[in-house]
């Protein structure tokens, strides 16, 4: 793995406890930057659908700094979708989300896993989805 480190990195992305979206810019700017910087193969229509599903389309021209914590969290998931990498590493993915959003995230996880993707995550709450291996600490 050390030899092909950047090859490995090409398949991995993560969400930490911080928000990586640029707070001074609007959602639209952030999405544009991610799409170009990650050389994403996700097209505009797919991004639009994802924005609508995550209910972020109404805030498109709003600065990220003015969004609530739950909304910024959903924006982080949008980054994962745009990056389109196989392995997601998530830290507390379901915290600060309302019930509807939690359901939506679970659906997103299942969709990702059904497309040969893998998710490694830590969580205080039971996510209520099928997990292949669980480590209790």
């Amino acid at each position, binding site marked *: 793995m050390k030899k092909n480190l*950047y090859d490995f*990195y*090409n398949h*991995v*992305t*993560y969400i*930490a406890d*911080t*928000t*990586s*979206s*640029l*707070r*001074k*810019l609007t959602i639209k*700017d952030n999405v544009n*930057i991610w799409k*170009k*910087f*990650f*050389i994403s193969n996700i097209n505009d229509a797919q991004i639009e659908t994802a924005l609508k599903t995550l209910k972020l389309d109404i805030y498109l021209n709003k600065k990220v700094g003015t969004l609530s914590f739950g909304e910024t969290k959903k924006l982080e998931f949008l980054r994962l979708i745009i990056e389109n990498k196989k392995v997601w590493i998530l830290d507390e993915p379901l915290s600060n989300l309302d019930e509807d959003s939690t359901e939506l995230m679970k659906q997103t996880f299942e969709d990702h896993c059904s497309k040969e993707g893998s998710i490694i995550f830590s969580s205080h709450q039971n996510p209520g989805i099928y997990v292949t291996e669980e480590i209790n600490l």
Partner: protein
Amino acid sequence: MNFLNKIIFFYYREYKLNMSGIQDILTNIIFFFISIFIFIFSIGPDKETISFIGVGILWTLLLLSSTLSLGKFYQDDFENGNLLIIHLNGFSFGFISILKTFSHFLFVQVPFLLSIPIACILLNIGNDKLFYLFASFSIGSLILSCLGSISSSMNLMNQRNFLLGSVVVMIFSVPVIIFSVGIINMEESFNSLINILFGILLIVFAINPWASGLCLKLSLENN
């Protein structure tokens, strides 16, 4: 080709970020000009004296103003996790530091470079010296950006005393000041002095990715 596109869009990202915080750049420029006014008022109306020490004042203020922006060199990207995301996108830490150094040069130092002619009018520095000032500042500011990159990456874990970063830059920028001011005051030895300045640039440019890259890696590992 993909890698080149990534570099281009890294700078697009930096451009967007800097334009959204353009007030920071303007504040630096305003600090620079207000400091010039303070120097002029404190020296008095003697044109000869102002003209004689003008170049020294200009270089000192350029150094001080450019160190003001060092706090944001890596700090924002480090705190919001973007450094790691950029790294996962295929850029080594050393390469990130090179890209960031050029970004600092473009968005912080170039505005100073453009404001030098106005500062020259205020400090009564003749047009004949403008070319030498431009030449020395173009190289000198890139050296300052490299030093800034090293010192701010060293200070990422330092939450208390960020001035330490500016102190490091100032100590190592002494040779830059000596040779840059020398170029302007000793025009006959322009070639030899600019070569020395260029040599210093090559040294810090070679050290920068190693030192900054390692500091970034260590900071992320210990965060």
